[in-house]
């Protein structure tokens, strides 16, 4: 896509487990800088769990996650926390802090990690909310706005510190097709204008083909990844029938046939 492919996130022999229950094993994939990388797969295959490993919420059972040449899980907890400030994360439900207004939600990381004065923080907050189409909603509480607006407000908060890498957990879940599409366009727009790398967990085919240029497919039965690469190429030419079935909504024939 970008011509020069510079690895941004590399997973090496990653195994994810809860206690003795192995969810996925031997994951190896590379996310290049500027990619929109899709983590896809059926329900319950560990997509969201993989995201939690990538952002530092859950420790891998085995293997490494490299950001550039930094071994993320080899860092001391405080360093890892500091490193994590380069991430912006949009949670499935938005995860806005419910006791704060939208403006306070977006402002909190700015107040904590920058030396900006209150006035410039206010300006930046308004800018971020305007970018996601929520100007004028600064003083609303998360419970007072719709699901789609919560997602967008969550995105504004994720972008507060101008992160290098944006993570999205099921951005279009629970949104109507139009809102989902607008969010997809917003993601593309942000990648192009800010130059950030984007990692998206989703199983919405429309989104996958609109925004993704790289992906990994997790399978709950095989307990590992079945394919990696551009989702459009995987749809047309992946040798694995399960992946093709998934990407064509079953129209390429049932698995095993």
């Amino acid at each position: 896509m970008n011509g020069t492919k510079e690895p941004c996130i590399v997973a090496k022999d990653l195994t994810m487990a809860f206690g003795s229950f192995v969810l996925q094993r031997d994951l190896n994939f590379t996310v290049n800088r500027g990619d929109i990388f899709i983590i896809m797969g059926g329900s319950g295959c560990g997509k969201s769990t993989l995201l939690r490993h990538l952002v530092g919420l859950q420790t891998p059972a085995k293997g490494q996650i490299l950001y550039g040449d930094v071994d993320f899980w080899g860092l001391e907890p405080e360093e890892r926390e500091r490193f994590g400030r380069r991430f912006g994360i949009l949670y499935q439900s938005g995860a806005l802090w419910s006791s704060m207004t939208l403006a306070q939600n977006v402002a909190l990381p700015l107040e904590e990690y920058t030396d900006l004065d209150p006035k410039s923080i206010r300006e930046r907050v308004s800018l971020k909310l305007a970018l996601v189409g929520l100007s004028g909603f600064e003083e609303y509480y998360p419970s007072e706005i719709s699901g789609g607006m919560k997602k967008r407000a969550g995105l504004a908060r994720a972008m507060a510190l101008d992160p290098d890498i944006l993570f999205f957990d099921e951005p279009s879940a629970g949104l109507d097709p139009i809102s989902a599409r607008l969010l997809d366009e917003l993601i593309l727009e942000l990648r192009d204008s800010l130059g950030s790398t984007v990692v998206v967990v989703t199983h919405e085919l429309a989104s996958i083909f609109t925004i993704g240029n790289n992906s990994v497919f997790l399978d709950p039965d095989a307990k590992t990844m079945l394919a990696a690469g551009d989702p459009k190429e995987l749809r047309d030419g992946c040798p694995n029938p399960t992946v093709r079935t998934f990407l064509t909504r079953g129209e390429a024939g049932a698995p095993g046939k």
Partner: protein
Amino acid sequence: MLAFHRPDTNTLVVRIAGDWVSGNPLPPAGEVERELSSGPGVRRVAFEAAALGKWDSGLLTFLLKVFDRCSAAGVAVEKTGLPPGVVRLLDLATAVPERKGARREEKRDPFLARVGAAAEKAWKSNRDTVTFVGDVAVAVLRLFRGKARFRRSDLLEVIQECGAQALPIVSLISVLVGLILAFVGAIQLKAFGAQLYVADLVGIAMVREMAAIMTGIIVAGRTGAAFAAKLGTMQVNEEIDALKTMGFSPIEFLVLPRMVALFLMMPLLCLYADLMGVLGGMIVGVSMLDLGLMQYYLQTRAAVNLNNLWIGLFMSAVFGVLVAFSGCLRGIQCGRSASAVGEATTSAVVTGIVSIIVATAVINVICNVLGI
């Protein structure tokens, strides 16, 4: 409704007629099985449904049971006689074979394994608690060094919620406890003509123990439960994950303001409950025992010394920390479902009240040993 006939020795025709809807009594599938085993050599089961009226899922479950039994007995089934809608639904229901290993078996572990699992769980929960104590201690140290990060407005909000807004219920309960203590004492003391000592009884009991315990229990039920529910819901909504990934420690950000607020507010509430309790005793003393207002007041003042007051206030500060601790601990440990929030809330209140009673006993023993 259900009839059988046999056009030849190999075939059993099941005739289904009438309305097969929920509400009508439906024949058990066992009848077909009985019919199968009654005559020898049935190799084929067919259906005739020309007289079938309305039908719903009841007919489908019946037919599925019949199919199961037929395939167990090695008898072929012919669905052609059934209405096309029924056949399509049956095909759909049998299209995906049951996934092997997906069904959860009710498995009962042997006794020793269960004891072991319970012990492991208890050990883990103790470790979690100790870890939480350690985290909180570190956060408190950071607070003293001025490095703890939380929102001042959160602290003020919690102070208002657990302090000022608790006043009405604390007033009610304390006055009533004062009344009850006075009643209990009055009956005994009146027999000796010593009703004046009701003032001593109520004063010392309230100031030294009861005010602290009662406010502790009220706050555990009111504020401790609210802490657990709030933090638990934040856990469910991934709000705590969002804090963590932005580099905010949930302990500093959420637990510390709550603990500080209760530590500051509990002694004040307790002092207020002292006054209200004495007022309750005074109501009984003046109205039932013919004591003068001034007389009751002077007697109370003579009976209650400052030591009693300090012990009561100290206990209430301890209770404040314990209630905040148990509420926040259960909230942070909460699982990711609605029922987990309910469990966390219950557990917070139970832990809070138990630790209050245990702490009271411990403090009393220590006071006794020290002679205060």
